[in-house]
């Protein structure tokens, strides 16, 4: 009996506490949405991978915190074409990036203020938004072999669509500063790009990435050597052209200049002769083929394959 009355008192206290707390939470939620000028129906929000979600953006938001109300949630995922796609944005990486002071809508220019804000091509818009501030780089990029032809049709159009936009190489929310800042902050972005050589160039130019494995350039770069060149140190970046194009930094006409003017490369005392550059450059992407053509290596490989075949029980 005593115990029952105890439980009853506890339940009563709980009811009172909840009844007091709910209006307080509701009031706080209202205050938040007002402050961010975004009317959000929290009750209907869903982070389920399958269920649709509904947000009511009746008033545009220019505030990052407004977007991060949803996109700061690690569980913000959707099921797309059988795959779970995350829409979570790590606010910490944004804060560390060189664009920390930019609004989300500075790049997501075509953000649809409705829910779900699906819009075809929003990624392309975001990846190209860089041009609004980095005009010189965009103009150089616009002349390069990565420029997309807008009048292509059919399979050519597909090929054109596969060409990279700014964001494909530079990334998105975590872009670090590449140039020296006025405060003398070290450009972490250069190392960030160097660490992502495969993602920047290799994933599209797989053959070139694979063949970049000579002793002192490719193999060293892939093993993290700081003084070994990344792809763009030789090939250039925004104004990149095929090596057959005379405008290319790695065209035969410019090789000596390219190899001689890098940071601590072959400029030492002007010793990099035409003959040396030709010899060394041909090895940079050519060693793999030379190895593949080596008769002794081919012979040894056949022997090891034959020996391996003796123990192969799969067939």
């Amino acid at each position, binding site marked *: 009996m005593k115990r029952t009355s105890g439980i009853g008192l506890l339940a009563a206290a709980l009811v009172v506490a909840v009844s007091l707390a709910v209006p307080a939470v509701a009031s706080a939620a209202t205050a938040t949405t007002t402050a961010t000028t975004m009317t959000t129906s929290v009750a209907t929000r869903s982070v389920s991978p399958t269920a649709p979600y509904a947000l009511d953006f009746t008033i545009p938001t220019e505030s990052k915190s407004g977007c991060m109300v949803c996109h700061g949630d690690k569980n913000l995922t959707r099921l797309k074409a059988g795959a779970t796609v995350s829409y979570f944005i790590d606010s910490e990486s944004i804060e560390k990036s060189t664009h920390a002071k930019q609004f989300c809508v500075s790049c997501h220019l075509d953000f649809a203020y409705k829910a779900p804000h699906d819009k075809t091509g929003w990624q392309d818009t975001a990846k190209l938004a860089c041009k609004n501030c980095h005009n010189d780089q965009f103009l150089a990029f616009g002349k390069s072999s990565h420029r997309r032809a807008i009048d292509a049709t059919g399979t050519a159009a597909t090929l054109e669509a596969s060409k990279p936009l700014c964001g494909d190489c530079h990334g998105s929310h975590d872009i670090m500063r590449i140039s020296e800042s006025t405060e003398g902050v070290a450009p972490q972005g250069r190392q960030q790009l160097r660490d992502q050589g495969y993602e920047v160039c290799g994933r599209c130019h797989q053959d070139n990435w694979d063949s970049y494995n000579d002793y002192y350039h490719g*193999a060293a770069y892939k093993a993290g050597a700081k003084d070994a060149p990344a792809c763009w140190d030789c090939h250039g970046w925004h104004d990149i052209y095929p090596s057959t194009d005379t405008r290319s930094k790695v065209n035969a006409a410019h090789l000596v200049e390219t190899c001689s003017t890098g940071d601590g490369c072959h400029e030492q005392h002007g010793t990099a002769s035409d003959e040396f550059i030709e010899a060394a450059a041909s090895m940079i992407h050519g060693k793999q083929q030379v190895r593949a053509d080596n008769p002794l290596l081919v012979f040894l490989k056949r022997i090891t394959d034959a020996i391996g075949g003796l123990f192969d029980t799969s067939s």
Partner: protein
Amino acid sequence: MSAILLANVNVWLDIIFVTLEILVVIVFFVVHVGVSIPTGRFRKLWIEKQWPKHDWAPPALPKFIHFQHLAMMLLLGLSGMYIRFPFFEGGREAMRYVHYVAMVIVGLNFFWRLWYAFFSKERDWKEFAVGKKDMASLLGVAAYYTYFSNNKPHVAKYNVMQKLAYDLFGVLMIVQGLTGMALLTQPFIFGTSPRELLIGWWLGPLVGGTAMAGAWVRIVHYSVNWLFIIVTTVHIYLAAGIDLPCTLDFFGIKKLDVDPNAYHHAHDDEHADAPSLSSAAAEVD
């Protein structure tokens, strides 16, 4: 032309030297050990423990220099191979420093050993000098090691093949030191670089510039590195396999038994039956 040549030469050298090292390991550690079993040498050494006798023990200083030299050469080989074939991530800078530091120590060590050989109280340079008697014994020594003969000519503390091998190490050290210096392009010698000073002025014009000369010298440096590895492989096999007690003494693991009367004959005698080791030479390969 030179473009294709440079790439091909580098790739050929990688393949040839790796193949050669594998062959050397097989020839010595498999074939030579294998043949030592039916000829009875293996039994006498490893089962009956009839190791070569010594009327001397290696002095402390050469042992210390040898140990230091071995450690630094291992570091040089490891770091040098890493610079060419980076087999783990992020080590290039550290490996370069290791290479430079080990190079300086090995260089100082080399001069220290030269001083010991020519100017110290013990001055043992004659032990490494190859004379007419040594050359005359060359075929006999080679026949002994290849099992064509059981008689090992003994004319000095070290046999002629040991002397040639140790002298070769010295020559290779000099070549490796010079070619290694010639790879340095930093202008720290009165505004010019070791590369310019050593090869730029004479080899450069012959092969198409100082940088091209550097590329060829790097090939020599790399090849000599492999020669060190191959000769050292043989050296390790013969030292541990033919005279383990002396090797253990050399590394301070177990003191060598010294018999002052081990040799009661003149050094120009021939051993009647070397494998019996009743009068075996103090051979340390």
